[in-house]
């Protein structure tokens, strides 16, 4: 029997597969295709302090082995999420991870404080790929000092473990990761999307109304693997890996690079059954490559 379970701060996972934030809404839609209780956990769409309506459309574009998105954090706000979305998810008895976004440190704090009111959340995923409106719009996740501060502030109030989600759009991912570990984060989640653009030839304008969008999908997998591999050599907190996962083989590649668990984003759009199919395939793939458990595979590329 291959053991798929993983135990991370706040997260007792029966398997290491969870849908990535923003690619799965709050789960309702995919529950039409399969029973969500099959998942290792669920990462909800970003929650902000107030309702956000997001960017203009078009918000997505297709690229070679990937896609761009600029949804703009559209969400009903943390209060409505607690009121309407979390109650839908709790009956599935899987850990719920709340992805938290904000434009100011105060907004992050407000969202986390509000989430403290429910005990249905097992962990927070801190989305720091958001522009800090008080600091000229530079993203929290692109400056180690800012990332450290927001992590510390959130850690100080959150009553659940905090996983900080790294932006890959940086010169030095290890510097970011260690700053965040030093700030007390319980884990890392990586990677978020790479900033990209596509130009629509007939109109001569960017396809995406926001001009730039985040690149996700198999195209970015080599970058995710490299960053996880590098970070794994310098930090001790667990890593939830993501970026282009489509198959159980991809999951194993992430585990070997140093991920403890993984999230599946864009693949849900191609195949709504991506997560359960990967969960079903994973034991066979682990066995094929002589692993008895997920835990045994984690970090395998660093041994010997």
């Amino acid at each position, binding site marked *: 029997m291959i053991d798929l379970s993983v135990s991370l701060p706040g997260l007792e996972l029966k398997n290491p597969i969870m849908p990535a934030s923003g690619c799965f*809404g709050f789960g309702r839609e995919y529950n039409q295709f399969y029973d969500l209780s099959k998942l290792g956990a669920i990462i909800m769409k970003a929650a902000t302090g107030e309702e956000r309506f*997001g960017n203009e*459309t078009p918000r997505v574009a*297709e690229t070679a082995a990937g896609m761009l998105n600029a*949804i703009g954090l559209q969400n009903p706000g943390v209060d409505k999420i607690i009121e309407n979305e979390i109650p839908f998810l709790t009956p599935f008895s899987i850990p719920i991870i709340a992805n938290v976004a904000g434009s100011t440190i105060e907004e992050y704090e407000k969202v986390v404080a509000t989430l403290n009111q429910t005990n249905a959340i097992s962990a927070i995923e801190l989305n720091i790929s958001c522009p800090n409106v008080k600091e000229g719009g530079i993203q929290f996740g692109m400056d180690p000092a800012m990332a450290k501060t927001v992590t510390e502030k959130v850690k100080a109030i959150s009553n659940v473990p905090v996983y900080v989600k790294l932006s890959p759009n940086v010169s030095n991912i290890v510097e970011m990761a260690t700053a965040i570990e030093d700030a007390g984060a319980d884990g890392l989640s990586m990677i978020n999307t790479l900033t990209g653009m596509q130009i629509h030839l007939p109109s001569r304008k960017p396809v995406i109304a926001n001009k730039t969008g985040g690149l996700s999908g198999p195209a970015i997998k080599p970058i995710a693997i490299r960053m996880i591999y590098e970070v794994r050599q310098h930090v001790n907190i667990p890593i939830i890996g993501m970026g282009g996962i489509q198959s159980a083989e991809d999951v194993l590649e992430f585990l070997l690079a140093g991920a403890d668990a993984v999230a599946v984003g864009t693949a849900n*759009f191609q195949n709504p059954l991506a997560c359960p199919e990967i969960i079903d395939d994973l034991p066979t793939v682990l066995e094929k490559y002589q692993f008895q458990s997920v835990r045994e595979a984690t970090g395998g590329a660093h041994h010997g």
Partner: protein
Amino acid sequence: MIKKEWMKIVSVDKIAKDSYEMMLENEYISTHAVPGQFLHIAVPGHTLRRPISIAAVDKQAHTTTILFKTVGSGTETLVIYEIGTELDVLGPAGKGFPVENLHEGASVLLIGGGIGVPPIYFLATELKKRGITLQFILGFQSQAYMFYEKKFQSLGETVIVTDDGSYGEKGFVTDVIGHVAPFDRYYSCGPLPMLKAVKNKLPHIEGYLSFEERMGCGVGACFACVVPTNDQKGYKKICQDGPVFAADEVIL
């Protein structure tokens, strides 16, 4: 309910320049589809599925017909599949045109533009069965791109408009709205600028618009395809709440 289904290609026929009619076999989809719904079709080698409206169903033969134009690499890949290939499809997707509260004998105007014509055809065949009187305004780039003219004529009065005047009237569908007989309600499907023009031209008439937008998931999970609305929520998702909306519900 939307499901992931395999649909077998039964036939592919060219019906106009760059335009194809494809018949797909699958019992679940053909049984449950209503006019206005679409199929979200996976195209191997492409990250995103392609949304294509349902243009007709045959519940006996378990077939669903789609009509599409080859405009890019997804549709170009789709059209070269061999008969017998199984397509990976999510469907029936979205909500259809509301037709319940139409009384027999009511008169309806249907306005389709380009790749917005296919769902209008499915709707028309269903309305006809209910004894509704139909008029059509159909817009195409040019005569070469025109299709299904005779089929529409057999269902009701049909005015064709082409951008270049190569067939029918020259201009936009809205240029001829004034020429048609009075109607109780309208339904329209086409590119956003056309829908805007139609809505502005027919401000006080009950109308339903079917939208196109670039989609991610196609099931309501990713928020790629929202449209602002007048209601309390402030937006709707085209793939899940639409693609059809009441004209007075959405902000264009």
